[in-house]
Each structure stands twice: as C-alpha cells, then as structure tokens.
C-alpha cells in the first residue's frame, strides 16, 4: 500500500528522480569500493569521487572508472568516511561509513 503510493509518486515526479544519482560504498579486502548508479540503472562514465574524513576534511579525490566505480585503500578512515560522487550537471550523491560500519564490514 505504502510502497504503491511511493511508486505512484515516483512515476509522477519521473524526470527528476529518474536522473538521480545514487552512491554506494562498502569495504572489500581492506579497500573501500565506491559505486555510483543513476536511478535508471545506468552508470556514470565520468565523475569525481571526493573522500572526506570524520572531521569532514577532504582527504582524497579520484575519478570513477567506466563502470562508475572507484577503489581506494582504507586509510585515514578511523573516524569514518563520507564519500561523495559528482557526475556533473548537479548529479551528486554521497554515502557515509561510520566507524561502526567499518568495524562491522572488516569483521572487527
């Protein structure tokens, strides 16, 4: 019921949401994996990844690969990370990894 309403809403607001960028980040083998996807499922081919530490200071920037992904070592993540991807034209999103998330995903 609720879901139905939300979907109806999404359909009505179509263009804005269809273009929305979503960013995911998780830890795999001591590295942070970043993945950016448009709500349509398409991957941005270009985009800037900006990594912020627990104090929200920029500690790293890099581009995404052709799959909208990026990887970087899990350094300076002690107080958590905020990972932002900017695919241009106002398409940007972020994902937050708290120290708790990192501990859980590294099995610590």
């Amino acid at each position: 019921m609720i879901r139905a309403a939300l979907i109806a809403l999404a359909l009505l607001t179509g263009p804005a949401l269809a273009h929305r960028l979503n960013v995911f980040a998780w830890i795999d083998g001591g590295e942070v994996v970043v993945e950016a996807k448009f709500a349509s499922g398409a991957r941005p081919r270009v985009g800037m990844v900006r990594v912020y530490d627990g104090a929200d200071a920029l500690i790293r920037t890099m581009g995404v690969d052709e799959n909208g992904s990026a990887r970087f070592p899990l350094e300076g993540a002690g107080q958590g990370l905020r990972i932002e991807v900017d695919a241009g034209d106002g398409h940007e999103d972020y994902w937050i990894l708290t120290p708790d998330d990192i501990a859980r995903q590294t099995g610590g």
Partner: protein
Amino acid sequence: MKAWKIAAAAALTAGAAQAHYGMIIPSDPMLAQEDGRSVALQVSFSHPFELLGMPLARPAVFGVVANGEPQDLLDALQPATIMEHEGFTLDYAIAAPGTYVFHMEPQPYWEPAEDAFIIHYTKAYVSAFGEDEGWDAELGLKTEIVPMAKPFAQWAGNVFQGVVKLDGEPVPHAEVEVEFYNEDGAAVAPDELMITQTVKADANGVFTYAAPHAGWWGFAALNTADYTIAHEGEDKAVELGAVIWVRFEDWARR
C-alpha cells in the same frame, strides 16, 4: 491486542494447529533508496496463519548470501519475543545494491504431537536498490526450494514455482505446504483445511502455486531424513523442511 487474543483463542479451540514454519520475515523485500540502508528481520518458528508461536532456540546456522558472498550472522541475532515465544530479530546493514538471501538451519525441534524432530531450513530474500541478480542461486542447503520465479517483486495472483531439492537432487512428487503469514490477523479461514494449502511437485520436483492475496507466503517442502535422532533413549524420525518465504504485492493503480 484484543483481536489477536481472540484469534488465538479461536484457533486453539478450533483444534490442532496447522503447519509449522521456520520464519524469516524481512521488514522490506525490496529496498528502495527512500527506505534507508538497513533491513530488520524477524526470525521465529511459528504457525504463520494462526499466529501461534513456538520457541526457537538459537539456530545452528544463520547467515546471508550477499551477492554470492556468504556471511555468518549467527552472533548478530538478538533474542526477541515473537508471537509470545522465543525468537530473534536482526538489523542488517545493506551496503551495496544486490540480492541478499538470508537463511537458517534451526536446531532440531522436538514435536511430541508428531513424535518426530523438525528441522526447517529456511530462506528469505531481500533485493536492494533495484538489483535482483542472483535470486535464482542455489545455496546448497541440506534441503532447499530453489525458486523458478523471483521470490520478490511478485503480484498477488501470480503463480510461484520452485524445485524441491534434498541433498542437491530434485525430489519427485514432493509435498509442499503453503501458508499465508496472517500478519494483521485479518484473514479468516472458512475451514481448517484452508489454513495450510498443499500442492505436490511434478516428477521433476517442480511445484506451482498461485497466491490469492498480497503478503508473505511460506512454502515448506517436507521430507523425512535418512537418519534419526534419539529422544529419551528412542530413535525418532526427523522431518526436514525446505522453507522459502515469498512476498507478493498488491496490484497498484495510480
């Protein structure tokens, strides 16, 4: 509260309870961006239509296969009371899009009414952020229903098909019990026989069922184990259940 008690009382006076089900019920079978990035599971051993609980001891195995990667979650289970009996809850953070298959192997449950032990290998699926690959994967459990239709993103009224497997092999003509999780207690069975539906698989172990109503439906394929477990000095049969929980959605119109 009151309604539940009445329903429970009615069920009790109606006679023997119906099928047992290992239950893993996710808070959301299809996670969208707006739903946040975590899912909550209710884990129990119950009669889902009548909402009658049985105690579920800490399972022997509880885990998730996330995009093909197995992960042990046994220690993350939090004791909880579900349908007035011991059960568990689990908050699981979902970091990446994909299909998450939660599964449990409970400890053998002694059921005096059936003079047998019951072990229900139970599965439930969550698809996160629009990705559904891997819904048809076989986990390789002792006994398992391998879905032939997505176990989420189904309309009420769709047929659901699966293959019943035991030790990795299809079970010809396996009996599959089907029961609705009567979450809000609103569904009423006009006859006791309507509580648990039963279908039989074909010669290839494939069964088919069309769910008449939106919600969670449990499918349990029951086989007798080729081993026994001693109870008070006597060898007792073991009922092996392959349980899969499938979510059907209401037809939606704008």
